[in-house]
């Protein structure tokens, strides 16, 4: 495949402007050019004021998430030619406050991991005397989460209200419950369950599974929300039958 020319329609917004706009750029894309590289090329050669976030270039830092032709993706692993479209529409992810151009403010998003009782550092499972629960392999590794926010952008409930805890944070909470680690694991798990058991927690989700569809890292937030509900439903039924208080 040879080099081709593509039209990039890029979302633009700077602080103080009344409304966002779209700007068009022509970019040459080789067979292996990614959307992120094309945007960096625009920055280098056409408009130095275009701002965007990125770091690793290999789908592990989660900073380059955007919506490309309406679909949430990591731009560093999205091939321009494989999109199969003449025009490439690039927009920041949704449902997270906008800073400028393609950059959103992830502060509130990260804070919810703390609320979920997800520790930044967890006890190692490779530590020989670590206390491991049985069947550890059956759990999906939610540490897979890149904190990219793509799930939050795609979720129809997140698009309705910022009060919803959102798929990523709920997935983190389920991680804390499903695979307790560290000294305070039991308490943290209880606290995480309490945190999600409310109208803006796991009960808010409408089972659209869009979060799972767009997650670039196989975290399956939708599935973990259902797992939280199963846990809480079981508890509610048992309380109803007075088997547990």
């Amino acid at each position, binding site marked *: 495949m040879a080099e081709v020319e593509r039209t990039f329609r890029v979302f633009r917004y700077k602080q103080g402007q009344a409304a966002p706009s779209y700007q068009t750029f022509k970019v040459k894309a080789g067979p292996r050019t990614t959307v992120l590289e094309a945007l960096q090329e625009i920055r280098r050669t056409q408009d130095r004021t275009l701002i965007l976030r990125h770091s690793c270039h290999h789908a592990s830092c989660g900073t380059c998430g955007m919506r490309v032709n309406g679909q949430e993706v990591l731009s560093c692993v999205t091939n321009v030619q494989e999109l199969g479209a003449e025009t490439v529409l690039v927009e920041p992810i949704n449902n997270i406050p906008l800073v400028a151009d393609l950059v959103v403010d992830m502060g509130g998003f990260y804070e919810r991991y703390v609320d979920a009782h997800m520790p930044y550092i967890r006890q190692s499972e490779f530590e020989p005397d670590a206390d491991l629960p049985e069947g550890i392999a059956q759990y999906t590794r939610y540490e897979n989460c890149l904190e990219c926010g793509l799930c939050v952008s795609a979720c129809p409930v997140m698009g309705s*209200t910022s009060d919803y805890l959102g798929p990523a944070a709920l997935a983190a909470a389920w991680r804390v419950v499903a695979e307790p680690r560290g000294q305070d694991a039991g308490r943290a798990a209880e606290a995480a369950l309490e945190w999600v*058991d*409310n*109208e803006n927690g796991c*009960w808010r989700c409408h089972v659209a599974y869009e979060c799972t569809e767009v997650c670039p890292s196989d975290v399956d937030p939708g599935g973990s929300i259902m797992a939280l509900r199963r846990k809480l439903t079981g508890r*509610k039924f048992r309380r109803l039958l007075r088997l547990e208080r």
Partner: protein
Amino acid sequence: MQNTITGQAARERQERSRAGGLWLIQAVSGLLLVALLGLHMVAHHFVVEGGLRDFQQVLDYVSNPVIFFLEVVFLVVVTAHAMLGLRAIVRDLNLSPAAARAADWILALVGAAALIYGVWLAAAIQQL
């Protein structure tokens, strides 16, 4: 991560279990409706010549106490499910807390009115 048990915490806890409880009612009533509505459709339309009961057939049907009871159960479940569903949609509209609470009351009243009217109607039909 301090968990002090205060009046507020207790209230929050109640509020919490309500959200899950409402969702469960919605799910269980929905599952019940699949059965009840299936019955309703078959009884009223599929087994009847012409697909709709004529006047006398309707009266005969509802005068059966078992059927009357089932119809009332159906009405209660379907109204609850519908009102909870509307509530979920209203909640997703991102209203102010006051507006959301007002909407809750309105939906509850509309639901109650529909119930009372429905039961009254069924009883009145029996008197015909």
